[in-house]
C-alpha cells in the first residue's frame, strides 16, 4: 500500500519508538503536522522558539539516553536550530532534526523561506541528508536514527522538501542497515587491553579522568566496579559529572579550569592517567605541554579521531567504554597505592571547595542547601557562566544523566528548554534549572511552553545583575574594567520601586507565565523558600539576589598549567607578574 511521505515519516518515527517531538510548524512542513494532528501515540510539544525546541530535544536525549527529535520548518525555522545543533554536536548528543525545505523544483531559486540548510549545518552535525527522491525517504530515516545513536552519538539532520512529504511511496522500513563509510569499533583490541592492565598494575600514582563518554556508553556501573576494585582515585570532567557518584570517597572533584585543587594537583602528580570517554579539552588540560607531566596516558574512546588529537597517547584503546571496562575489570585487583591515597586525602583535607561563611547571600550556599533539601536527587540543568560552575561544584551528582549542561559549546539559554525535555522524559522527577540572570533571558519565552504543558520545573536564578563569568575575567585579568557586563538600569532606576534595579522583575514575569515567583535576598530565607518551591506543584521561579561580585574559585587562568590556581584579583596579578 502506498502512503504519503509525511505519513511515512511518522511511521518511521513509530518504528524508532519515538514518543515525543519538539517543534514549531511553518509553510512547507504543514503536510507533516497535518498527519500528526491525528496521531495519539507521539506527543508534539510546541515551543516558542525553534532554539527552545532543539534544546528541549537535547535535554530529553541527555536525561533519557534516547534520541531527541525536533521538527521545524524551512528557512528561519532551520536557521533557528543552528545553535542547538552545534550544542548537541559538541557534547555528542543523539538528536534527529527534521527540517522542512522548499519543493525540490524551487531549490536554488531563492524561494520564499529557502535556506541551504544542509550546507549551513554540515560542520555542526554528525551527518545530514537532503531527501530528493521520495524512494530514499524511508532508508534515510533509518540511517539518521542509526547514525545519531551509535558510535560517538551526535545530531543528524534530515532536510525534507515539501514535495517529498506529499509524494506517494511504498513504506518498507528496513530492519537493519549497512552504511559503507560508517564502521564502529566497539570491542577493544585485546592486545591493547592487556597493555592497559599491565600499566595499571605497575602504576604507583594512577588517576582516572572520565568524561561524558562514560555516560553515553552507559558504562557507569562498570566504571564503579573498576574504581572499587582498584581503589584508584577518580576525577570527572564537567560532562562526566554523575558518571561516578560524587558522594564516594574515591571521587576527588571536577578537574580543569574550575576544578578542585585536589583534582588538579592529582593530575599534576599522577604517573598514570586513564582517560575514559573524555577528549582533553583545553578547559580541562590548561597549558597542554604541562598537563600531567609525569604520567603515561591511557585513552579509552569510541572515536579514533579523539585519540592523540591534543595529547600523545601511550596506550590507546578504541571502542565502547562499557565493553572495554568490563574486559579490564576481569583482570585487575586492589592496587598497592597507599601513599598516593594518603597524599590525596591530605590534599582533600587541606583544599576543600570553600566560600565565605557570613551573612551575605552567596550562590554556593544556595546550591548546597538545594542539594540537602532535594536529598541530592534532582535532575539539574544549567545555563552558562558562574551559575553553571557553582552548580557543578556544590551539588553532588550521584547518577549518570542527572546533570545536564552545555559543556563544549557553552550555550547560554540552554538550561530552561533542556529542563523541559528532561521533565518530559522524567515526569516523576524533580527538575531544577540553575540559571544566571543573563542566560535565562536567552530562552525565557519557553516559560510559555512550561505553562502550556503544566510542567512543575523549578528555576533557580542566581541573580547577580551581571554577565557574571565575563565580569569575573574582567576583574581578574582586565583590571576591573567591567565592559559590557552590567545588566542593571543605566539610570540607576527608582530605588523606592525596585531596590536592586534589576531587569526584568522575575517575580512579576513568573506571574505573567502562570508560574509562582519568589524573591529571596537573605541567607536566612533560603531554606524556607526552597522548601516552599518543592511543595509547589506548579513551575516556580526563585530569584535569588546574590552577592553581585562573587567569584568562581579556584580558577586556572586560560593557558596556565593546572596546578597554578588562583582565587582573587590579587592572585591573578601575582600570577601575571611571575
Amino acid at each position, binding site marked *: 500500500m502506498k502512503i504519503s511521505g509525511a505519513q511515512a515519516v511518522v511511521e518511521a518515527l513509530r518504528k524508532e519508538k519515538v514518543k515525543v517531538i519538539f517543534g514549531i510548524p511553518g509553510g512547507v512542513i504543514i503536510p507533516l503536522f497535518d498527519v500528526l494532528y491525528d496521531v495519539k501515540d507521539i506527543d508534539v510539544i510546541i515551543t516558542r522558539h525553534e532554539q527552545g525546541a532543539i534544546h528541549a530535544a537535547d535535554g530529553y536525549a541527555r536525561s533519557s539516553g534516547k534520541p531527541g527529535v525536533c521538527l521545524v520548518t524551512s528557512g528561519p525555522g532551520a536557521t533557528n536550530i543552528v545553535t542547538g545543533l552545534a550544542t548537541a554536536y559538541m557534547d555528542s548528543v543523539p538528536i534527529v532534526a527534521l527540517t522542512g525545505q522548499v519543493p525540490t523544483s524551487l531549490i536554488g531559486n531563492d524561494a520564499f523561506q529557502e535556506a541551504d540548510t544542509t550546507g549551513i549545518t554540515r560542520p555542526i552535525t554528525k551527518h545530514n541528508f537532503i531527501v530528493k527522491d521520495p524512494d530514499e525517504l524511508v532508508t534515510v530515516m533509518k540511517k539518521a536514527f542509526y547514525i545519531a545513536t551509535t558510535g560517538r552519538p551526535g545530531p543528524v539532520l534530515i532536510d525534507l522538501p515539501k514535495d517529498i512529504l506529499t509524494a506517494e511511496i511504498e513504506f518498507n522500513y528496513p530492519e537493519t542497515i549497512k552504511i559503507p*563509510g560508517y564502521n564502529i569499533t566497539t570491542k577493544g583490541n585485546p592486545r591493547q587491553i592487556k597493555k592497559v592492565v599491565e600499566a595499571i598494575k605497575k602504576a604507583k600514582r594512577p588517576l582516572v579522568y572520565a568524561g561524558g563518554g562514560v555516560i553515553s556508553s552507559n558504562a557507569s556501573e562498570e566504571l564503579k566496579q573498576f574504581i572499587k576494585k582498584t581503589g584508584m582515585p577518580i576525577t570527572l570532567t564537567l560532562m562526566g559529572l554523575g558518571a561516578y557518584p560524587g558522594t564516594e570517597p574515591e571521587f576527588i572533584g571536577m578537574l580543569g579550569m574550575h576544578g578542585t585543587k585536589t583534582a588538579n594537583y592529582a593530575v599534576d602528580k599522577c604517573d598514570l592517567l586513564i582517560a575514559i570517554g573524555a577528549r582533553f579539552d583545553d578547559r580541562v588540560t590548561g597549558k597542554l605541554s604541562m598537563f600531567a607531566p609525569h604520567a603515561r596516558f591511557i585513552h579509552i574512546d569510541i572515536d579514533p579521531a579523539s585519540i592523540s588529537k591534543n595529547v600523545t597517547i601511550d596506550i590507546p584503546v578504541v571502542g565502547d567504554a562499557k565493553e572495554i571496562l568490563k574486559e579490564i575489570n576481569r583482570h585487575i585487583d586492589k592496587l598497592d597505592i597507599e601513599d598516593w591515597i594518603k597524599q590525596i586525602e591530605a590534599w582533600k583535607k587541606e583544599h576543600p571547595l570553600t566560600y565565605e561563611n557570613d551573612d551575605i547571600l552567596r550562590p554556593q550556599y544556595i546550591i548546597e542547601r538545594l542539594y540537602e533539601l532535594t536529598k541530592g536527587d534532582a535532575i539539574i540543568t544549567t545555563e552558562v557562566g558562574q551559575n553553571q560552575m557553582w552548580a557543578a561544584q556544590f551539588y553532588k551528582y550521584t547518577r549518570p544523566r542527572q546533570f545536564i549542561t552545555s559543556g563544549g559549546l557553552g550555550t547560554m539559554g540552554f538550561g530552561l528548554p533542556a529542563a523541559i525535555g528532561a521533565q518530559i522524559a522524567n515526569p516523576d522527577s524533580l527538575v531544577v534549572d540553575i540559571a544566571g540572570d543573563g542566560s535565562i533571558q536567552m530562552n525565557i519565552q519557553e516559560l510559555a511552553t512550561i505553562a502550556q504543558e503544566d510542567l512543575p520545573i523549578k528555576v533557580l536564578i542566581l541573580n547577580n545583575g551581571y554577565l557574571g563569568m565575563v565580569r569575573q575575567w574582567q576583574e581578574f585579568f582586565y583590571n576591573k574594567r567591567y565592559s559590557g557586563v552590567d545588566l542593571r538600569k543605566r539610570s540607576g532606576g527608582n530605588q523606592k520601586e525596585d531596590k536592586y534595579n534589576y531587569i526584568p522583575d522575575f517575580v512579576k514575569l513568573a506571574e505573567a507565565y502562570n508560574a509562582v515567583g519568589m524573591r529571596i535576598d537573605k541567607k536566612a530565607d533560603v531554606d524556607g523558600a526552597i522548601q516552599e518551591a518543592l511543595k509547589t506543584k506548579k513551575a516556580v521561579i526563585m530569584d535569588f539576589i546574590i552577592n553581585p561580585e562573587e567569584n568562581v574559585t579556584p580558577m586556572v587562568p586560560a593557558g596556565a598549567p593546572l596546578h597554578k590556581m588562583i582565587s582573587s584579583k590579587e592572585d591573578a596579578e601575582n600570577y601575571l607578574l611571575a
Partner: protein
Amino acid sequence: MEKEYTLGVIVENKSGVLAHIAGLFSGRGFNITGLSVGETENPEYSRMTIVVRGDDKIVEQIKKQLNKFIDVIKVMDLSSVPSVHRELILIKVKATQSKRQEIFQICEVFKGKIVDISHDTLTLEVTGITDKIEALISLLKPYGIIEIARTGRVSISRGFKKGGER
C-alpha cells in the same frame, strides 16, 4: 617535521560531499595544496586525491577526521606506499616566429603535445609529477606565460592491490 602527503580518498559520488570535505580542511585549519576529483571504477564512488602539508601528527588527524565522515569510504596514504603520481598542465605561451622552434623543443623534451597554435601563441599539454610541471613552467617563463590550467595531482598505488593494501 613538515612535509607533503598525498591522500587517496574514496567517497560517495553525490552532491555535497566535495563541499563537506573542503569544509573540513578550512574548518580545522588544515593546509591543503592540491585537490582533484573524478569518478572511479564503481560509479557510486568518486576518488579524490588530496595533497596536504603538515607534520605526522596533523596528517594523522586529517586521516582520522576524513575517516569519520560517513560519506568517506576509504582513506589511503599514498605517500607511504609506492605510488604513481601525475598532474596535467595546459600552458599558453607567447610564441613569436623566432621563438617557436625553441618552444617546440622544450615541449618535446617534456614529452608534451602542442594542442593549440595561433599567430603568436602556442598551447602545450604536459603530464608528469609536480616537479616536472614546475620545471616546465620555469623554462617557459622567459617567453611570456599567458595562461595556465592545472589539474592537481592524481595518484594511484603500484602493484596489483587496490589502494596500497599490503
